[in-house]
């Protein structure tokens, strides 16, 4: 089973939910946690352990200026504006390149070949006996998160139980993470911001056909609007976590709620049962 934890709005507690759910599950089974928030990955802060780092590269064009006739076809073809051909020089802007390979295909002189360029890393660690942690990390200054997410997910492709922590928002990184997931936990907070962004996130899961369930975090009891939205859209509120300065402090220090306050393990175990039902997996 593959689960994603997503949110729309940032800072609602995705990483907290993913980390605690995985921690609780490792007591009985093997779990792989994949940090797909590659722009700002945080799961490794909750599971410090020695890690093996692998470079993720993407192919970028290199122009052989001896062969290049400066015809400009590559510039004309490139949809991203990454090539500018001057009279006797070609300028390449790597941060605009999507590594599609189009320029190498259209060059009539075979003057362009591709070389790998580092765009980020993946790290693998085993912080607990039954836990594999895979983190994708985008190289700072590189705009393209999707290839790193793809590389991180690929490392978990054959694992039986995978939990993916997702970036906030509703665009390409979220779509890439949710792709192939059996169910998605959407973490929200009971403010108009939380509800507004939850509606967008629900829209994304629906478009992708991934069943979703809701967690209300930082609840101060004024959750009525969120609960009504969930009822109207046939979404289950699977868990409500109250606002509590101590829970916030546990999280901010990089500790795990289920380890510091073991009474929470039962709630996360119940959450997992609901996720399995949502995913249509009989466990």
């Amino acid at each position, binding site marked *: 089973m593959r689960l994603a934890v997503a*949110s*729309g*709005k*940032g*800072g*609602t507690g995705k*990483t907290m939910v993913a980390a605690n759910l995985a921690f609780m599950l490792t007591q009985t089974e093997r779990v792989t946690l994949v940090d797909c*928030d*590659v*722009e*700002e990955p*945080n799961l490794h*802060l909750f599971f410090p352990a020695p890690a093996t780092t692998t470079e993720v590269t993407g192919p970028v064009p290199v122009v052989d200026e001896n062969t290049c006739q400066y015809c400009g076809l590559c510039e004309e*073809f490139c*949809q*991203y504006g990454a090539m500018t051909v001057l009279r006797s020089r070609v300028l390449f802007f790597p*941060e605009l390149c*999507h*590594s*599609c*390979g*189009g320029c190498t*295909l*259209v060059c009539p002189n075979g003057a362009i070949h591709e070389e790998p360029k580092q765009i980020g890393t993946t790290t693998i660690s085993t912080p607990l006996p039954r836990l594999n942690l895979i983190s994708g990390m*985008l190289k*700072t*200054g*590189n*705009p*393209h*998160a999707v290839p790193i997410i793809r590389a991180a997910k690929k490392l978990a492709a054959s694992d039986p139980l995978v939990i993916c922590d997702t970036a*906030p*928002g*509703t*665009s*390409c*990184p*979220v*779509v890439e993470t949710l*792709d192939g997931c059996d169910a998605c936990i959407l973490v929200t907070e009971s*403010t*108009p*911001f939380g509800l*507004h*962004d939850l509606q*967008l*996130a629900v*829209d*994304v899961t629906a*478009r*992708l056909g991934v069943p979703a369930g809701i967690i209300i975090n930082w609840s*101060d009891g*004024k959750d009525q609007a969120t609960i009504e939205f969930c009822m109207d859209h046939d979404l289950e509120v699977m868990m409500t976590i109250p606002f509590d*300065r101590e829970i*916030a*402090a546990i*999280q*901010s*220090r*990089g500790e795990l709620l289920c380890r510091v306050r073991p009474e929470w393990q039962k709630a996360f175990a119940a959450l997992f049962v609901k996720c399995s039902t949502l995913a249509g997996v009989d466990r």
Partner: protein
Amino acid sequence: MIRLAVISGKGGTGKTMITAALAQLLPGSLVLADCDVDAANLELLLNPKLIRTEPFMGMKNAVIDPALCTQCGECMEHCRFGAIEAGGDAYRVSLLRCEGCAVCTHVCPATAVTMQPRQTGEVMYSETERGHLVHARLVPGAGNSGLLVHAVKKTAMRQDRNCDLFLIDGPPGTGCPLISTISGVDIVLIVTEPSVSGLHDLKRVVAVCRQFRLRILVAINRFDLDESLTDSIRQWCSVEKISLVGKIPFDPVVIESVRKGVPVTSAGASPAAQAIQMLESNFEQELRHYRDHRE
């Protein structure tokens, strides 16, 4: 005009709350933009009156004409984004995966593939009490959020270039929407929080900002939730020679003001409002310094 973006690295640290309060407090003429186009929230605090909406056309996407497709598989073989799906009588392009590179149009021997424009969002131009607001809506699940950010900034610059200040509510993260937000900006205010994640994400977003040679300021929100981590952030900023311009305490009035749909500084006297007023006066000093320095 000075261009300022409020950003954070980590999501949910209070960017929008601070942007709305600054919009209310800062003197001079303003134009505002919400560049968190994935999940735009600034409008929920500024009560904008919509003036007009423009469609946003993202990258063109490939479309395969089923009448011409011979299912030879060339497009699928060359597409590096896994966007070509087989099945039925013809191949199809997954709009969620297509990045608009047009390689498939080049390799198709049957000229069955064309690039078609597609609306993936809209840009809205609105009026608020503190000036015009440019905001946007991305079709959920659509790509090109960086391009939409660019379109939002361009609209603001085209319409209101004579304002004293361009104030931007930015996206979280360090990727394409963030880079698009901070390019061409003079000053960034990074809002962080006292948590291991907050500090980690602050360091990464600072590393990105440094590649753009802009002035970096930091504010710590909910600083009293962990005073020792607040201290770590302060020390890190001092080692890195980054100005800390504000510290805002945890205050339930912040959530109350969001529920009322107003900036916290409009919700009566409160510890958070007071702290933001101090942030604002430090920030004004920074602005004066920046102007003098620039001239």
